[in-house]
């Protein structure tokens, strides 16, 4: 039995897309290879690191675990859709000011996780931030500067 490609209609970063892909293709690959949105990264491919995070209908998900068939009709935001033109999002600016990005490989996922956290909880305590970001691994920063960035961003 051969599996056929299907067409999936969805919105990515406010633009409507019609994507041809195998139903079980990972959202990660479809976005990175098909749409050339390479901001999200593959750190583990098994839902552990969060480097592949995107917002799916406003919820933070690991795109390496999402079969593309599941995003039909969905609204997807990737890191490329966060800044408004040249205007950085407050979280992005705060990551810059506080040194929240070092090698930068976890940063797109981390920024999306922070944004998603602040949407659910606009005034998080440091403990909330720690829990909210626990699905995103960073090997460079030890997280301290990321906490500082998130706490400052919510004061804006």
């Amino acid at each position, binding site marked *: 039995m051969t599996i056929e490609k299907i067409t999936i209609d969805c919105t990515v970063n406010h633009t409507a897309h019609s994507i041809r892909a195998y139903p079980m293709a990972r959202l990660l690959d479809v976005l*990175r290879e098909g749409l*050339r*949105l*390479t*901001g*999200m*990264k*593959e*750190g*583990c*491919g*098994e839902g*552990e*690191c969060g*480097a592949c995070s995107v917002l799916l209908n406003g919820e933070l998900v690991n795109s390496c675990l999402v079969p593309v068939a599941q995003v039909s009709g969905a609204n997807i935001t*990737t*890191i*490329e859709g*966060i*800044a408004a033109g040249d205007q*950085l999002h407050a979280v*992005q*600016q705060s*990551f*810059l*000011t*506080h*040194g*929240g*990005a*070092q*090698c*930068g*490989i*976890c*940063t*797109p996922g981390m*920024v999306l996780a922070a944004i998603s956290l602040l949407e659910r909880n606009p005034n998080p305590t440091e403990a909330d*931030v*720690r*829990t909210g*970001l*626990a699905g*995103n*691994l*960073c*090997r*460079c*920063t*030890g*997280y*301290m*500067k*990321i*906490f500082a960035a998130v706490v400052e961003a919510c004061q804006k």
Partner: protein
Amino acid sequence: MSTNQTQIVGQSIQRKEGRDKVTGAMRYVDDLLFPEMWFGATVRSPIARGRIRSIEFTGNLPWHEFTIVTAKDISGQNCTALILDDQPCLADKFVNHAEEPVVLLAHPDKYLLEEARRAVKIDIEPLPALFTMDDALNQTEIIWGDDNVFKTFLVEKGNVDDVWASADFIVEGEYETGAQEQLYIEPNGMIAMANADDGVTVWGSLQCPYYVHKALLKLFGLPPDKVRVIQAATGGGFGGKEEYPSMIAGHAALLAWKAGKPVKLIYDRAEDMAATTKRHPSRTRHRTAVNKDGKLLAMDIEFVIDGGAYATLSSVVLSRGTIHAAGPYACDNVRVRSKAVATNHPPHGAFRGFGAPQSIFALERHLNKVAATVGLRPEELRRRNFLHEGQTTATGQVIREKLDLDGLLTRALELSDYHAKKERFAEHNATNATQKKGIGFATFLHGAGFTGSGERFLESVVGIEATATGNVCILVASTEIGQGTNTILSQIAAEALRLDYEMIELAQPDTANVPNSGPTVASRTCMIVGKLVESAALGLKQTLVQSGLLTDDYSLDEWRQACAIYIAEHGALKSFSKYEAPPNIFWNDETYQGDAYGAYAWAVYVAEVTVNLVTYETRVDDFVALQEVGKVINPVLAAGQIEGGVAQAIGYALYENVVWDNGTMRNNQMTNYIMPTSEDLPPIRVFFEENPYTYGPSGAKGIGELPMDGPAPAILNAIESAIGVRVNCIPLLPETLMKVMNA
């Protein structure tokens, strides 16, 4: 009048490439796409040691569509050139460790490629393998050279054997550390283009472009100008992308050459963890003579590391571990005997700290035992033995800088509220049966730059070029891997030339374009390369002054004008600077005596823990990291380095366990190899003291590796203070602690 009088060095200026990192615009190797690009895969040995009998291409696959490479396709020397060139690029007749590369495949369809990788069957006749340092030392099999020993060092100061008889106490101890995975979040990867006309070009995730360059030259037997290595943005290295990328670059290039197509070879996490290097496991034995006042009379140290199946960098890792083994203490009689041995593990390699975290762990645990034996507090024992200006280290290096370890210790204990907490915890522990609290510390040093004569041999060169607009480009092979190379080198150049930070940029590390400023390792980029950037920058200015185009005091406009005129007349304005050792630095490679490092960073780290006696879990509740690092170039970046290193070292101490099974890593996934998450770490409180180093740029020393050294012993010292039980191995997992406590 000068326009730009504000200090740039010492400011927390934003990371140069930060914007691209927070917007996702930064391109890492897996983000690059080439026309007609194929994908590559590596078929590896399933067992640790054996003789290759046959290679079969099974299954119903269109094998004729694949490019297949084995050792026979190598035109040059079949090695991954490094120090001894003993590691093959592809195993030929024998395999010496599990996951050793044997066959390479390339195909345009990466899904089919993965199927094919599984369908290659390598038949290997097993040979007996070695997996422990003791078996290697006892020579139960000879697997490398004549005696399974990659390298031996002997450091001798005074004569320890004269002392034992007169000592009040002799204290012995044995300490072990495990392997640790670097776990950069971006796995290794390379893209290659290669053919007879153009030679070999690779783009990749790497720390040391010229290491890869050297390896490709040997592998293909090409002249230097036919090999080009370009660093793509690199998502973390920590040493894990120091030597192994040379292997991957070789593989990608062999495939590209044979396929006639660009080939992208990216490891997935499981492959990266199972096949690439890790921190060397170690065992250290201490025998220490001390008098009743707590004065160290003799330190006899035996340090062994497991190098894995090939020599790779083990000799150098051993060297750094050996030199740091006696710590920041003055003792007249020291003997360090060390060995790097061969086993059939995948070769262990560079990892932040490079041998020092292992030997410092042993020493800082051992000194607490010495203190307890003598009846002194751990801080008091150290105070009685700290190095001072004018005294000598184990290698006989005279400390010529102002050094106040006493002051550093006092401040760290104050910042952590050590004494008050110690009392409070004693009360708490007396009444609480399951939650035990403790506090402990470690005092240590870390040498910056290559060891001994290393920097002399490297002869690093840095270039700097001005454009007609007066902007300046720094030409170095030193790579940005997250640690801040781009930012701090720009700050140093801007400061030296009194230009705006925005006027400085770094050329992409590309061996066709930048001189060899040496590898990005050994905490050398800021101190050594930074100093060269500073002098190359001053050379640029000097050229303009000598041409009469600039006076010593200039405005930005005058600078721009001078550059424009000079370039119109001469075509280009460039300046190069080459490493010269500071005066009074001498090292004897034969006796292992002398000035091991130009400068050391000094530190005291304090950890506070809670040990849960129901689950046997240890939690670090607070962490103070105080260090003297010369001038801090960028406080936010520097603190970020320390915090990240401490986090990695907390993982090393408590969580990160490589499970070996006949030489294969069994937990090669992030699901079961546990690194700290944001929920696992204490507040990491970082403090600096500045004591400018004459030969560093604006007085800076190296800091990158330092934070890896202190946390593990500080945490285990804290655990001992909490539960009164001595544990001397890491990682200290709950199951290990349970066993120890129930023994």
